[in-house]
């Protein structure tokens, strides 16, 4: 028992299992499974062959049934462990299945056909990672082009979002003017308008601006977000006005006050908004799908939808590419998570 197990098995009061210890364990393990289970399943499933995906009951790890080339048969045959009437078990290759009976051959003695009830045989399976799920899309599809489009849209939109929203938040938090609270209220009210409501008018605006089939048509409508303005404004309200007065006495222009005083002090809130914006833009599907109709402009999310055709959904590619598209978001979270916690804590209390 090392330090780790002593830490994990630490209990209330030191001795015995208190009921709260058990509840805590159940809660935490349950939480782990609920939160992490789907992600793990996704990652493992992305390594399954189409046959493995269709399998029932499903397995978590990617197994494949072993195959063997048997003399006298053109195609490789699947291997099974069969229980024979005499009670012995042998590894046999299945030739064909008729009803509930399976005709099998021993790979060593291909001449002799053995009939086995299908309930008496179990497939011989081994772990196998179908890496071609990952490699093939790179070869067959314009994965790198989609990736570039997604990165361009995400980075540009996030940068513009940060600048535009922080400017709005600065004005709404640090300047006294008539209609300030009305303006804030209107901005917040737009939170209640879903994309599907404004989709058609937005589309006609974008199209009359000539931004149809243009990545800027994806970027521009998304950059002004009420959530962003709200987060930043609330944070900026906590910056003392005396600092801004001090900067005014220090001959700073209004732009300098924004750029050199307010913006650096808003960094934690900006980080939070940056993470949100990256996740939003990266995962955007509907709007890019509407604006972009040329393949070479597709973002990853739109590109992924290619794999689900009308008749045939190529789940193995979809799953593999979903894993790939998840990576940047996960990375952003790993590197910026401390900003999220400090930022959220900072916006709440001082």
């Amino acid at each position, binding site marked *: 028992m090392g330090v780790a197990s002593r830490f994990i098995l630490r209990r209330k009061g030191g001795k015995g299992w208190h009921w709260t210890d058990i509840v805590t364990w159940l809660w935490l393990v349950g939480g782990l499974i609920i939160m992490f289970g789907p992600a793990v399943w996704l990652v493992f499933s992305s390594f399954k062959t189409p046959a493995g995906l269709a399998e029932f009951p499903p397995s978590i790890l990617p197994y494949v049934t072993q195959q063997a080339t048997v003399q006298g048969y053109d195609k490789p045959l699947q291997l099974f462990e069969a229980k024979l009437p005499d009670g012995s078990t042998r590894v046999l290759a299945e030739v064909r299945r008729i009803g509930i009976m399976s005709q099998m051959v021993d790979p060593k003695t291909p001449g002799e056909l053995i009939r086995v009830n299908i309930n008496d045989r179990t497939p011989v399976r081994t772990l196998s990672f179908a890496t071609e799920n990952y490699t093939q899309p790179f070869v067959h599809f314009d994965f790198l082009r989609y990736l570039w489009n997604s990165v361009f849209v995400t980075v540009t939109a996030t940068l513009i979002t940060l600048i535009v929203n922080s400017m709005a938040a600065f004005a709404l938090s640090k300047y006294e003017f008539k209609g300030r609270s009305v303006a804030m209220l209107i901005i917040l009210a737009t939170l209640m308008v879903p994309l599907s409501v404004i989709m058609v008018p937005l589309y006609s605006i974008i199209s009359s601006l000539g931004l149809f089939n243009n990545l800027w048509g994806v970027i521009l409508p998304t950059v002004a977000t009420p959530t962003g303005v709200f987060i930043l404004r609330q944070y900026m309200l906590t910056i003392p006005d005396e600092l801004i*007065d*001090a900067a*005014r*006495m*220090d001959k700073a*222009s209004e732009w300098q006050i924004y750029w050199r005083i307010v913006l650096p*002090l808003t960094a934690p809130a900006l980080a939070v908004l940056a993470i949100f914006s990256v996740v939003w833009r990266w995962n955007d599907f509907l709007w890019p799908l509407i604006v972009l109709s040329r393949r070479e402009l597709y973002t990853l999310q739109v590109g992924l939808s290619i794999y689900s055709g009308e008749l045939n959904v190529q789940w193995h590619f979809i799953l593999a590419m979903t894993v790939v598209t998840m990576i940047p978001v996960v990375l952003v979270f790993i590197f910026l998570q401390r900003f999220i916690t400090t930022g959220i804590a900072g916006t709440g209390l001082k």
Partner: protein
Amino acid sequence: MGEIKLTDIKKSFGSVHVLKDIDLHIKDGEFIVFVGPSGCGKSTLLRTIAGLEKVTGGEIEIDGKRVNEVTAADRGLAMVFQSYALYPHMSVRQNLAFGLENSNMPKAEVAERITEAARMLEIEPYLERRPGQLSGGQRQRVAIGRAIVRRPTAFLLDEPLSNLDAELRVSTRAELAALHARIGSTMIYVTHDQVEAMTLAHRIVVMRAGKIEQVGTPLELYNTPANRFVAGFIGAPHMNFLSAEVVEQEAGKATLLIGGSHRLLVPIAGHELSVGDKLTVGIRPQHITLANDPGSLTVKVRLVEALGSETVIHADLNGEKLLAVVPGQRQISPGDDAHFSVAGAPLHLFDGNGLRIKDK
């Protein structure tokens, strides 16, 4: 040069009149202190001088030039804020340099001024630190340093010592006085602490409810307060006020009845008082002595605060509170009867409107 002239300054926020007809002439090199209870408009007055608030009426002149429309940046003043308002994301050096860089000063001169100010304020070891890594006292110095490097026409200080602990406040107060003596610029200092005002100021401006109550040197205010408010505000503990009635009057003198039975003979040269007039008599607690003779004021002791070097006696005279500060340690306890003597004490007489009755 740092001469500031305020004429008829008015300031209102909506229907609230914060400043009412302020007239004040601050001479070059003067250390002037605005003092008053909170909400009296002293900070607003300072911010109007700074240019951070626009006046609603009146005229502000700096060195003879009208500056009403001039922005805060161009008035050539520097301000030290109550919270210090140091830029938390910049090092001390950057904090000091920010204002100078904004006025496009050559780098060499910026560096030179920072070195000089840092030496003067003894903050050289902290120049590369962030404000968050400094103690309260150090931050306060940096805030003053940020004002000094600008070499302003006048310094505006908004309660700069209120965030320091009591001990540090006393030493910083002395340093501030020394700094003023050294630089010689005009300083306008806002505080609600009358001890700070008394110790620092050349002249004190006592304000109440947006109006100037009295302007004068600390001792002028202490010895001849113009009205009851100033009398009560300046001096610690506060002055005692007793209601009095004129019972007799002859040439230049009047006899007042206080505490129901005690008679006081006071000089009232040049004042018309008639028998029956109600007055207020102000006596500083320090001027009351303990007496044995029954001819003095007989009071009931309510509370005794023994401070070692002196004893503060809270007493009751026919329902009126009376405070006495007597030197040394006294054997007296609550519930006792005591005799207070005001013989020879400077008395301050205020008429029914609270204005001083001058004793020329």
